[in-house]
C-alpha cells in the first residue's frame, strides 16, 4: 500500500484519474481542464483583437467574430474562471479546515465530469456547423432567431456544465459546514474557506434561475415552446431577468474566492495577521447578499422605468462599501508588516490598484442616467475586464504560484514568474485602460469592425498590442508550469516560511488521506500559533492514530456524464425545433432524436439506480498501513532533494 514508491503504468494512471474521488486529484483535473479552456478563450480574444487592429480589417468575418465573442465570454466565465477557482477550492479548502476529503467525494467527481463534458459539448459546436453567436448573454430575440445549432450547443452545454457547478457548490457548502476539524469554529475559518462558502451559497441560489432560463430557451428553440416568441405571447424580458439574476451573482461567485485567495497570500508575505478578520467575513457575506439585489443594473436601458432604475442604482452603489472595507483591510494588513515580494505577492500588489480602478468604474455605471451613455459601449468592456482580469485572473495566477508547492510538491520559477507578471500586467493595462475612452468616444461593444476616422484607430491599435503582451505572459506561465515538472521536488512543509493556516502544516507530498490524525484547532491561524509555540510537528491532534475511513473510487460519475452528453445530442437534433422546421438547422428523425434522449438519460438514471442499489461503504486504512505509509513518505522526503527557489 505504499503510495509513493509504487510506480503505476500509464493506463493505470489514466484509469485512476477517470475514477478518482480524491479532492486533490479532482483539483488537478479542474486545473488542467480550466487551463485548456482558458487558453482557448484567450486565443479567441486574440483573434478578436487582431480583427480590430485596423479599421475595416478582414482578418475574421462578421459571423465568425460573433462566434468568437460569444465563446470567449462564455468560456472564460463558465469554463475557465469557474473551474480554475474550483481547482483551488478543491485542493485547499479541505486542508484548511482539517478534513480528509469533501463531504461527498462521489458528487465531487460527478461535478467535474458534468462540467467537463458540458464544456466539450459546447466546443464541439465549432466542428458541427458553427459556434453560438448571440453573445454570452444570449439575449432572447437574437438567440431565438440565430440559424443553425450554435445556440443549441450553448444551451445544452451550459445546462450540463451548470449542473456540475451546482453539484460542486452544494458539496462545498456541506463540506465547510460539517467537515471542520475540532476547534475550527466559523470565526476561525481562513478567509479563502469563508469566501468559498459564500461563493458556493451564491452558486446555490444563482444557478437555478439560469437552469430555468436555459431550459426555456431549449424548449423554445428545440421543441416549439413560446416563452420568448413575442408573436405567440412570449416575453423576451423574462430571459433578461432570469439571465441577470444568475449573471450578476456569477461575477461575485468568481470574485469572492479571488478575494479569499488574496486574503491568504497577503498575510503570509506581510508576515502579519489579516487585518480586521471579522469585518472581512462580514463584508464577504454582505457582498454576497447585495449581489442578489442588483441584477437589474444590467438592464437600465431595457426600459424598466425610473423607479426600478433608481432602486437598482442605489442598491448597486452600496456594494462599494463592503468592497472598500476589504481593500482597506488588505492595505492595513501590509501596513506595519514585513513585506516579502514573491511572485504571488506581486500579483496581490498588482491586484489592489487594478481592482480599485475596476470597482470605481462600476460605481460610475451604477449611476443609471450616466449608464445610459456607458451601457453596451467599450467603457463596460474596459470595466469588467478590469474586474475580471485585474481581480480574478491575477488571483488565479498568484494562487497558482502560491499553492503549487502543496498541489504538486514543486515550485514555479520565481524569476520567470516575475517576468511573466510584468509582461502580463503591463499588457493588461495597455489593453483595457484606453477602452474606457473608446467607449466614451462612442464605440459600441461587440462590433466586428469599425469605419476609419471616427477617432478610434490609435486606441484600438494600442489595445491590440496590449492583448498580444497578455498572450505572451500566459505562454510564459505555461512554460513555467512545464519547467516545474522537471524541477526538484520540495519535500517539506511551509514552503514560503510564513504559512499561517492549516494547509501549510502538512509536509509535501501529501498522503491521500491528508491528515493521519484529525488536527485540533486552537485559534485563528492555527499553524502560526503552533509555530510561535515551537511545535515542530505543526499541529496538535484531536484524536489518537486510528483506522482511516476513505471512499471508494468510481467510474459512475463519468458514465453518468456521458449519458447526459448523449441525450444532449438527441435534443440538439430535434426535428421539432423552430430552426429545424425553418430548414436552417440540421435535424434527425423523431425516432432517433427521442431515442438518443431516452438512451442517454437512461444511462444516467441507470447509473444512479446502480449506485443506489449497491452498498458503497468505502474502505478503512488500518493503523498499521497508515504507519507504513507515513514511514515510506518520510523516507521519500529524506532521500529526495529539497528543491525550490529559496
Amino acid at each position, binding site marked *: 500500500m505504499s503510495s509513493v514508491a509504487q510506480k503505476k503504468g500509464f493506463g493505470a494512471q489514466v484509469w485512476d484519474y477517470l475514477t478518482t474521488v480524491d479532492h486533490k486529484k479532482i483539483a488537478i483535473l479542474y486545473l488542467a481542464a480550466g487551463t485548456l479552456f482558458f487558453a482557448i478563450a484567450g486565443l479567441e480574444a486574440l483573434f478578436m483583437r487582431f480583427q480590430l487592429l485596423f479599421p475595416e480589417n478582414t482578418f475574421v468575418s462578421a459571423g465568425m467574430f460573433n462566434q468568437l465573442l460569444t465563446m470567449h465570454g462564455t468560456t472564460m466565465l463558465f469554463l475557465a474562471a469557474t473551474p480554475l477557482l474550483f481547482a483551488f477550492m478543491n485542493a485547499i479548502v479541505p486542508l484548511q479546515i482539517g478534513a480528509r476529503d469533501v463531504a461527498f467525494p462521489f458528487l465531487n467527481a460527478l461535478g467535474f465530469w458534468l462540467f467537463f463534458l458540458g464544456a466539450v459539448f459546447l466546443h464541439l459546436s465549432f466542428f458541427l456547423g458553427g459556434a453560438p453567436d448571440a453573445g454570452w448573454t444570449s439575449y432572447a430575440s437574437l438567440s431565438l432567431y440565430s440559424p443553425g445549432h450554435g445556440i443549441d450547443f450553448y444551451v445544452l452545454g451550459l445546462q450540463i456544465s451548470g449542473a456540475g457547478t451546482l453539484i460542486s457548490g452544494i458539496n462545498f457548502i456541506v463540506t465547510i459546514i460539517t467537515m471542520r476539524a475540532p476547534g475550527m469554529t466559523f470565526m476561525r475559518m481562513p478567509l479563502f474557506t469563508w469566501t468559498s462558502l459564500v461563493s458556493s451559497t451564491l452558486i446555490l441560489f444563482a444557478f437555478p434561475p439560469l437552469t430555468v432560463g436555459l431550459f*426555456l430557451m431549449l424548449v423554445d428553440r428545440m421543441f416549439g415552446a*413560446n*416563452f420568448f416568441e413575442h408573436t405567440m405571447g412570449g*416575453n423576451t424580458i423574462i430571459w433578461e431577468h432570469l439571465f441577470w439574476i444568475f449573471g450578476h451573482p456569477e461575477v461575485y461567485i468568481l470574485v469572492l474566492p479571488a478575494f479569499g485567495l488574496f486574503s491568504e497570500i497577503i498575510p503570509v508575505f506581510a508576515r502579519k495577521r489579516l487585518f480586521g478578520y471579522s469585518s472581512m467575513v462580514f463584508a464577504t457575506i454582505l457582498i454576497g447578499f447585495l449581489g442578489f439585489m442588483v441584477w437589474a443594473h444590467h438592464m437600465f436601458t431595457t426600459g424598466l422605468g425610473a423607479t426600478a432604475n433608481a432602486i437598482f442604482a442605489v442598491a448597486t452603489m452600496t456594494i462599494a462599501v463592503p468592497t472598500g472595507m476589504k481593500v482597506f483591510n488588505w492595505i492595513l494588513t501590509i501596513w506595519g508588516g514585513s513585506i516579502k515580494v514573491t511572485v504571488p505577492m506581486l500579483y496581490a500588489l498588482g491586484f489592489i490598484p487594478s481592482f480599485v480602478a475596476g470597482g470605481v468604474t462600476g460605481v460610475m455605471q451604477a449611476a443609471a442616467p450616466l449608464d445610459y451613455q456607458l451601457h453596451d459601449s467599450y467603457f463596460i468592456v474596459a470595466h469588467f475586464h478590469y474586474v475580471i482580469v485585474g481581480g480574478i485572473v491575477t488571483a488565479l495566477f498568484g494562487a497558482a504560484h502560491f499553492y503549487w508547492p502543496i498541489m504538486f510538491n514543486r515550485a514555479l520559477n520565481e524569476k520567470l514568474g516575475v517576468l511573466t507578471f510584468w509582461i502580463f500586467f503591463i499588457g493588461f493595462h495597455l489593453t483595457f485602460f484606453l477602452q474606457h475612452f473608446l467607449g466614451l468616444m462612442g464605440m459600441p461593444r461587440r462590433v466586428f469592425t469599425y469605419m476609419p476616422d471616427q477617432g478610434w484607430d490609435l486606441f484600438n491599435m494600442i489595445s491590440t498590442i496590449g492583448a498580444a503582451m497578455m498572450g505572451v505572459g500566459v505562454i510564459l506561465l505555461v512554460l513555467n508550469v512545464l519547467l516545474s515538472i522537471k524541477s526538484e521536488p520540495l519535500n517539506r512543509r511551509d514552503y514560503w516560511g510564513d504559512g499561517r493556516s492549516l494547509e501549510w502544516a502538512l509536509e509535501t507530498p501529501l498522503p491521500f488521506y491528508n491528515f493521519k490524525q484529525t488536527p485540533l484547532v486552537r485559534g485563528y491561524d492555527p499553524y502560526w500559533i503552533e509555530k510561535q509555540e515551537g511545535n515542530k510537528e505543526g499541529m496538535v491532534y484531536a484524536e489518537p492514530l486510528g483506522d482511516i475511513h476513505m471512499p471508494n473510487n468510481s467510474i459512475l460519475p463519468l458514465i453518468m456524464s456521458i449519458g447526459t452528453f448523449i441525450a444532449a445530442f438527441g435534443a440538439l437534433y430535434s426535428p421539432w425545433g423552430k430552426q429545424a422546421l425553418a430548414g436552417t438547422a440540421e435535424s434527425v428523425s423523431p425516432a432517433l432524436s427521442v431515442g438518443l434522449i431516452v438512451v442517454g438519460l437512461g444511462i444516467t*438514471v441507470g447509473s444512479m439506480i446502480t449506485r443506489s*442499489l449497491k452498498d458503497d461503504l468505502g474502505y478503512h486504512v488500518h493503523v498499521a498501513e497508515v504507519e507504513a505509509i507515513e514511514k515510506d513518505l518520510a523516507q521519500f522526503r529524506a532521500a529526495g532533494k529539497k528543491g525550490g527557489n529559496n
Partner: protein
Amino acid sequence: MDLNTKFTPQNWPEHAEQATMEGKNKFVGFWIFLACEVVLFASLFATYLALKDSGPASMDLTKYSAKALYELPLAFAMTMLLLTSSLTSVYAMYHMKNFNFKGVQTWMGITVILGIGFLCLEIYEFYHYVHIGFGYTHSAYSSAFFTLVGTHGLHVIIGLVWISSLIFRNMKRGLNLYNAPKYFIASLYWHFIDVVWVFIFTVVYLMGVLG
C-alpha cells in the same frame, strides 16, 4: 457509530438519519439542495405569472384562459392525494424512529401508490388539455403552464422511482444506519414536492379560476 452494529429497537439511535458522518452530510446537503429547488420553482412560478393568459393576438380567451381551462374538483382531488401521501411518509418515518422496518416499508409503499394516483390524474389532465387544442406549442401561456406543472410532475416521477427503488433494495437488508438517511431524505423530498404542489394549487388553479 459503526455501520455493522446489529440493532434492536432498544439500541437504535434517536436520530438514526444523522448518526453517521455520511448520514449527517446527506441530511445537511439535502436541505441545501432543497433551497436550490425552491429558487428553481420560484423562477418557474414567476415566468408562469408573467405569461399567464398570454398568447398570439388571435388566441380565444373564452376557451384558452386560466378561467376557462382549469377544473377545481380535479385539482382538489390531486391535492388530497398528494397531501395524504405526505402524511403516509410521515408514518413511515415514525416507524423508522421505532426501528419498525415493516412499518417503514408498508407506509412508503402506500406513499408510492398515492403518488401514482396523483400522477395518473395529472396525465389525464394534460391529455385533456392537449385534446381540446391547448398543446405545449399553443401559446406562451400553454408553454408556461405545462413547464411549471410538468416540472412538478417530473419531480413526482423522480420521487416515485427513488422511493420504489429504496423499498426494493432494502427488502432483504432491513433497517441500518446506512439506509436510514436514505429513507429520511427521500421522505424529505416527498414533503417538498407536496409543498410545491400546495403553491401550484393556490397560484395556478385557485388564482386562475378565481382571478
